[in-house]
């Protein structure tokens, strides 16, 4: 994609973010942080692309580290969020 297209996506996504996140009640702010943390593990997509079959050895090693870190973020983030959210109960 062109830079301007990506910029449009970036700015619009920030607006959507502000719109929905201001509606999250304070009682769920910790799960919001851990959940959004898991989502920021989306960097894993970039990490996967870095290890494509024709990548150099250096790029592959860097990709390996990046996948590991992003995966900790994704798996840990979603699991811990799930653990917390399942505790919130109605009377």
């Amino acid at each position, binding site marked *: 994609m062109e830079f301007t297209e990506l910029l449009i996506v970036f700015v619009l996504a920030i607006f959507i973010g502000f719109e929905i996140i201001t509606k999250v009640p304070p009682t769920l*702010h910790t799960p919001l942080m851990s959940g959004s943390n898991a989502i920021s593990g989306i960097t894993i997509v970039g*990490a996967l692309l870095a290890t494509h079959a024709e990548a150099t050895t250096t790029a592959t090693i860097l990709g390996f580290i990046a996948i590991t870190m992003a995966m900790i973020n994704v*798996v840990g983030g979603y699991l811990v969020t799930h653990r917390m959210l399942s505790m919130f109960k109605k009377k």
Partner: protein
Amino acid sequence: MHMHWSIDIAYLVAAILFIRGIKGLTHPRTAVQGNLLSALGMTIAIVATAFVIGLNWWVVIAAMIVGSAIGAVAAVKVPMTGMPQMVAIFNGFGGGASVFVAWGELTQRLHDVGGVSGELAESAGVHAAMFDPQFVIATALAGIIGAVTFSGSMIAYGKLQEFKIFWNPWVLPAHQLINALLALITIGLGVWLCMADTPPMAAYVLLVVVSLVLGVTLTCPIGGADMPVVIALLNSYSGLAAAATGFVISNSVLIITGSLVGASGLILTSIMCVAMNRSLANVIFGKIDASKAGASADEVYEGKIKSTSADEIAMMLDGVQRVVIVPGYGMAVSQAQHAVHDLYNELEERGVNVEFAIHPVAGRMPGHMNVLLAEVDIPYEKLVEMDAINPQFSQVDVAIVLGANDVVNPVAREADSAIAGMPILDVDKARTVIVIKRSLSPGFAGIPNPLFALDNTLMYFGDGKKTVVDLVNAIKEN
């Protein structure tokens, strides 16, 4: 890299699921499902990426197993009181991943250009296309933000875990000058990376190293009650780092997702700052001026402190209608939440209406108290926000302050105090206030709390957990 259109559709579906997922978090009832939708989105994004390009499978599978195992063990083992440091360290890994993705992309492009230049040595067009401004600027930003997030989060983790080396805040002489200098060097390296015909690898590596140091020096002096702001800000950075990485590899799903997380962290940061009536700059670079407070501890407390016991409180609670418990970081430290649950049950069984008043910055991260109380099965309708509970304190029979201090300090209402203007919970308006605390020592702000000396306040000294357990036993015997 040219990618098939189907992968973009998969990314679109993933982005929609992330947005639906966050939307689910707007109510506890829909939150679990929201989180699962979001996880489904992530799975779709990963699977689509993995299958559309030719991957180095061994590397990918090995890394995924290692990362998943570490993440899963950490997530299952962490106690709820340890949640702030867990979020901090996960943030750090997110930032770290961005640093490595940008680094990998840069080495790959440098290699590809090296291969081409043999045949087309004069072809400047290839260079210009490979290292266009978007790529180099985004690479610099991903390196800077990612590295600051990584090292800053590790320091935040260490502080929250209360490792011994962090017991005293590290403040260097001319600390702000050093920060400014490091920031300037970082920008300089960024400019070098961006302006060179071929981005030098050395510039990127140095940029990451200096940014790592900057993350440490920025986070080190901040401590205690300011931690919620730091964690929220680092949360935002981890998102922005992902968005910058999206610009590095021209990938829309990284940009969408990164900006959602960036926005989320910024909103939480601003909520925390408003709840302390301090600017972000003041939290990061300033400190509370305790000397500004007029009265000394002796003046405030002398001869006015009334101490009480579990039996006395049990008698007092007999026959009351409404009790509000104000939890603070002290409840987390003493692991008193289970005892608080027993107290809640005993009182509710006796027909008392028990609620919890939650200050936005109570604890060490946004929503920290809510999670601890949810862990012990306190229904979420019983957790009341500051603005909702404050007008009602005059109708409260007994307010029990458990391990909170600055957020109930009435001097915040005085214009010349160190915490002037900070919104507080108006517990002093309750008929009787019971403060459970180890001693009269000040809170994070370092100033005495006149609440403890009020006519309607009784101090119940001791460890948070032990005192509440004793109180529950006294109520049972009463």
